[in-house]
């Protein structure tokens, strides 16, 4: 019994992994662009399986500096990301069902690895998008690149770019945080028990 999660913890882990279903119905990331000519802002929403928002308008503007045409085709990730999220949901449910604290730890380690890979992948795309420019672009500034911010704010020519999780992304962050908290509380309680 001592290495098992409490019922409350198991419910919370099940809830956290169940909450990941939001990622299928809500955008996970958003990039907002503001410029003098766009006080109302342009927005691109990134979903686990596609894009939405003012993508065509952003493409129209970015072609001047030779950036690639953003389209769903340029992201192979959209093909397998839904399965990855599904896998994590399933795994979380299994942890809740088995109720092993050790499994929860492994689940969290996998979550950290998955998250790190996602961040790296997003960075890699942003680097390519911002650096790999059409040599025939109308505006070419030697040495200047336009890599969008990974997280937070960055000034790109006349645009202020903001990159933050969207609603779906915040749900994922919240769910992960919940799972971590559950593990930490369980670990703390267990340690107390063993030391007493």
């Amino acid at each position: 019994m001592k290495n098992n999660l409490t019922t409350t913890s198991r419910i919370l882990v099940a809830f956290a992994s169940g909450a990941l279903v939001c990622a299928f119905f809500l955008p996970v990331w958003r990039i907002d662009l503001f410029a003098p000519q766009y006080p109302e802002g342009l927005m691109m929403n990134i979903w686990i399986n596609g894009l939405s928002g003012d993508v065509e308008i952003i493409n129209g503007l970015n072609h001047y500096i030779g950036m690639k045409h953003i389209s769903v085709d340029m992201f192979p990730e959209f093909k397998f990301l839904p399965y990855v999220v599904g896998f994590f949901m399933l795994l979380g449910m299994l942890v809740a069902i088995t109720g092993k604290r050790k499994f929860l730890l492994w689940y969290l380690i996998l979550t950290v690895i998955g998250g790190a890979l996602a961040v790296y992948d997003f960075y890699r795309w942003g680097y390519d998008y911002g650096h790999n420019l059409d040599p025939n672009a109308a505006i070419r500034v030697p040495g200047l690149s336009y890599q969008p911010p990974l997280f937070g704010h960055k000034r790109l020519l006349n645009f202020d770019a903001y990159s933050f999780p969207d609603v779906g992304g915040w749900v994922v962050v919240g769910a992960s945080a919940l799972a971590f908290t559950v593990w930490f509380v369980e670990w703390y309680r267990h340690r107390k028990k063993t030391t007493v």
Partner: protein
Amino acid sequence: MKHTFFKTMLALVVLTASFLSFQGCKPKGAQSAVSGDAAAKAYVAPGKYDEFYNFVSGGFSGQMSVYGLPSGRLFRVIPVFSVDPEKGWGYSEETKPMLNTSHGFVPWDDLHHIALSVTKSEHDGRWAFGNANNTPRIARIDMKTFRTAEIIEIPNSAGNHSSPFITENSEYVVAGTRFSVPMGDNLDVPINTYKDNFKGTVSFIGIDKTSGEMNLSFQIATPGINFDLARAGKGKSAGWFFFSCYNSEKANTLLEVNASQKDKDFIMAVNWKKAEEYAKAGKGVKKQVKYAHNKYNESTHSATSEIKNEVLVLDPKDCPDMVYFMPCPKSPHGCDTDPTGEYIVGSGKLAAVIPVFSFAKIEAAIAAKNYDGEYDGIPVLKYEAVLHGEVQKPGLGPLHTEFDGNGNAYTSFFVSSEIVKWNIKDLKVLDRVNTYYSIGHLCVPGGPTSKPHGKYVIAYNKITKDRYLPTGPELTQSAQLFDISGDKMKLVLDFPTIGEPHYAEAIPASMIMKNSQKIFKLEENKHPYAALGDNNAKVERKGNEIHVYMTSIRSHFTPDNIEGVKLGETVYFHVTNLEQDWDVPHGFAVKGAANAELLIMPGETQTLAWKPEKAGVYPMYCTDFCSALHQEMQGYIRVSPAGSNVPLTFSTGTNLPAAKPAAATTAPAEKSTTK
């Protein structure tokens, strides 16, 4: 000698002093009329929005202009009855049919009055209607696009002045003819047979509840008098329409004298609900006429013009209880119903009083047949029987009246150049304020509705004289904004207007701005010549016509090089703006085009017809500064002699036919074809 000198000096001093005192007796300058906080009241800070839209008639400009209140800033001139080369209105192939009439293409008119659509006599922010005073027409403007959506011509009418006033739920807009004219088969009659051959009409144009589409429902034949202005009733009087008329003398020459003989002319009261019943019951006679009905389709981005041939005419002789005359002093002009619908204010241009009629008394007089004889077979109600009362000594030359919803009326006086505020119930004058100069119409936001928004009254003046920096003999027209939130009207702002403003309406910005359309969706573009994407751009020859299916997107045209056009052929540039972004129109112009430019909104397709007269290479370019590389948005079209064998080719980004290795292209090669 000394004495003489002294006396002369004394005389000079006295003379100068008296002259100076005469100077002091001259009226004070107009500037003194402004109070200290006027600037703050009209100030709308940069980037902030005005509280009201003001839709102002353009008079002889034929257009409708849109201002913000209280700033008086001009936002847009909506082309309606006159061509507008700046916007391609009346020049593009798509818009030409909008100006078609039974007289053919008419490039100009005179727009006098505005009627905003209403539901339960309150603004609903859907459509604005305007009248064409010269070649009788009514236009409907869509408040989502601020564009003219429809124009209908009015047959059996000449000078559509008494128009386009609207009923309580926008069932009808009306069109009363200013000129009576000969009607029927024999139109070629001596003018001096006016009394026998000339007739008037008032038309009721039905409005579709959902689409707003207009349809000439019926006309009422009237004696040969002249209709001036009109208003629908409201509330209990909503089933009635009141038309002011002059020239009951039936003069056909020197009207300024001959139509001013009688002590009283009329306000014609029409029970339009009853007229509607008669029309449905088949009491009318179908008359052969000819009139144009023009509609703009927002999915094909094109107008169509249909000539219609029939109108249903109701004769009051066959339709009892439909039309009555009420005597009204001296050539009434304005004819305005108060927010409750109980009071009808007549304004005899030459009268010394303002008569106010009571709807309750009108109903009672009709029930009691309290008549003062007939006029051409139509019962004339007794003046005293229908009169609520007269405003005594209001001013000189009353014209129009608006209302503030607090029981007050505001009447404009042309001759004494002032606005007079008075109480409707007790008819007491409360305040008066000068206008600079000679006010015509006036406008209180929501003034003609059952729920006026009040706050301001705007004067639309006929004369500006010394109010602005002079610009030669032709001076600007102007409006003046007065704050009416207190007991006293206070002048806040002068602002210049386009054309000559007549009637105007103002509506809260919140009712319009949220519906304002930003773009036309490309996927809804059903224009037969639209190229929905650079890959669909092409050039085709059909007989002696060349059709260019052209696209524009920041910052190139596709195609931008065209060869193979021959003299004698007409080139149709069908330009589709592929942008789907707010406020990115593209323009199009080609050298030597004998019409105008195109101004194409995002997602829209517009066509410019061009008939080159000489062989050569002609430049074309984007006229609306669209991007940093707007200047580069240009191209060429080559025209060869009639017998030439230059093949029809087109391209963008690559030379076709190829001249040299395509090494220096800056954009990816577009689809190129040879025909």
